[in-house]
């Protein structure tokens, strides 16, 4: 019964998250640019309607099926990733023993979706964007896996529900602060944002989106926002104790924490510079991977000594 409840709540959660993310996306850049803050709910809706109108666009001989499937797959992956997140004690859409493995599968399939999106266009700029993203998306996944495994150690389980319960004594952000930061980076990479936006950047005139318009662009935009929401909820669950918290009901706590991570991610996307892809690849393999590794060792040692 609680599962049915979770399945009903999830679309609403995702929808609310997408709206919030879209509003933040319009509010945060002016804030960073030092202009007056004009947050409005109407803005994103008008932009969405504007995108919904008009032709979709195509090139001479694109891989039409893949081009249609890529944003749909991306959006679906965001929803599946969110399905392992418990909204309240026992309220989870997909209570799997291997929840974080399912999350990992969503991450790796996201790389496939983004690649497919750029490849299908049969146009040089999207193509470069697609290949660039693979170079970063693949190793970035390794980081998140190490971090999630370190989170699974104290829980003695791969289920996300158990990981939340294991944080009753201490949140995982305290156990592995660097892991939290690494996971935020992964969030940026999954939702193609700011310093990790290697698929749709300005220097490729929009990268994988350079050839699309209309409904295709709208879907891709929604999928990116959905993935952002999904990553935020996952971060809040794995590192910030999910629904745990005093006084307020669990669901409210989850929403508050997810919102907080959302703000951090949108902000980080605006204020940090993007490295060229080759340097980013180097950085991930040679600095961030050893760091995630150290975090894992630290959690292991802590559990051995005091666990």
């Amino acid at each position, binding site marked *: 019964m609680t599962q049915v409840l979770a399945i009903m709540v999830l679309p609403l959660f995702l929808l609310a998250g997408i709206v919030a993310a879209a509003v933040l996306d319009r509010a945060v850049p002016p804030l960073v640019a030092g202009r007056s803050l004009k947050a409005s709910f109407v803005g994103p809706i008008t932009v969405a309607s504007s995108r919904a109108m008009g032709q979709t666009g195509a090139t001479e001989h694109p891989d039409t099926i893949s081009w249609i499937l890529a944003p749909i797959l991306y*959006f679906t992956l965001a929803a599946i990733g969110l399905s392992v997140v418990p909204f309240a004690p026992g309220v989870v859409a997909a209570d799997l023993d291997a929840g974080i493995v399912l999350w*990992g599968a969503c991450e790796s399939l996201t790389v496939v979706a983004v690649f497919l999106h750029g490849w299908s266009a049969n146009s040089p700029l999207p193509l470069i964007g697609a290949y660039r993203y693979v170079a970063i998306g*693949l190793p970035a996944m390794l980081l998140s896996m190490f971090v999630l495994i370190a989170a699974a150690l104290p829980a003695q389980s791969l289920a996300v529900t158990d990981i939340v319960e294991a944080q009753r004594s201490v949140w995982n952000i305290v156990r592995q602060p660097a892991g939290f930061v690494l996971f935020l980076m992964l969030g940026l990479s999954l939702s193609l944002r700011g310093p990790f936006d290697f698929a749709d950047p300005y220097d490729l005139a929009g990268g994988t989106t350079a050839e699309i318009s209309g*409904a295709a662009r709208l879907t891709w935009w929604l999928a990116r926002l959905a993935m952002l929401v999904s990553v935020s909820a996952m971060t809040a669950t794995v590192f910030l104790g999910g629904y745990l918290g005093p006084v307020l009901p669990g669901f409210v706590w989850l929403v508050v924490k997810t919102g907080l991570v959302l703000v951090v991610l949108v902000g980080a996307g605006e204020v940090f510079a993007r490295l060229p892809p080759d340097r980013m690849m180097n950085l991930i393999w040679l600095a961030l991977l050893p760091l995630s590794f150290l975090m894992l060792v630290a959690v*292991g040692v802590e559990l051995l000594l005091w666990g």
Partner: protein
Amino acid sequence: MALEGLAGALVIAFVAASIATVIRLAPSGSAESLTEPQKTPFLGGGAPDTHAWQRYHIRYYPMTLLFIAFEMEMMFMYPWAVVFVEEGGKAMMEMGMFLAILSVGIVYGWREGIFRWQ
């Protein structure tokens, strides 16, 4: 538990995919079909000679090969994480050894310069 979880995930996947499909394929209000000049790939004004699909020269291909071998270690690490607390020091040592072996591969790859754009 596994079957219910799978069912939940599949239901969510189906719903999400349906919503995305409806948005993607919704009628746009513009019935005109695309013309040939409209379909020229965007290059800022120029027109390309050839198709963009090509034997694309990936600049990080050694990295991907190292990656698929290294990434296999995850398969072993997930079950390890579940029993880590139970097994304690032994688990730590065995996984330490395993990862140390694989790290040699990364260090070797780094020395050969495979993390650069080739």
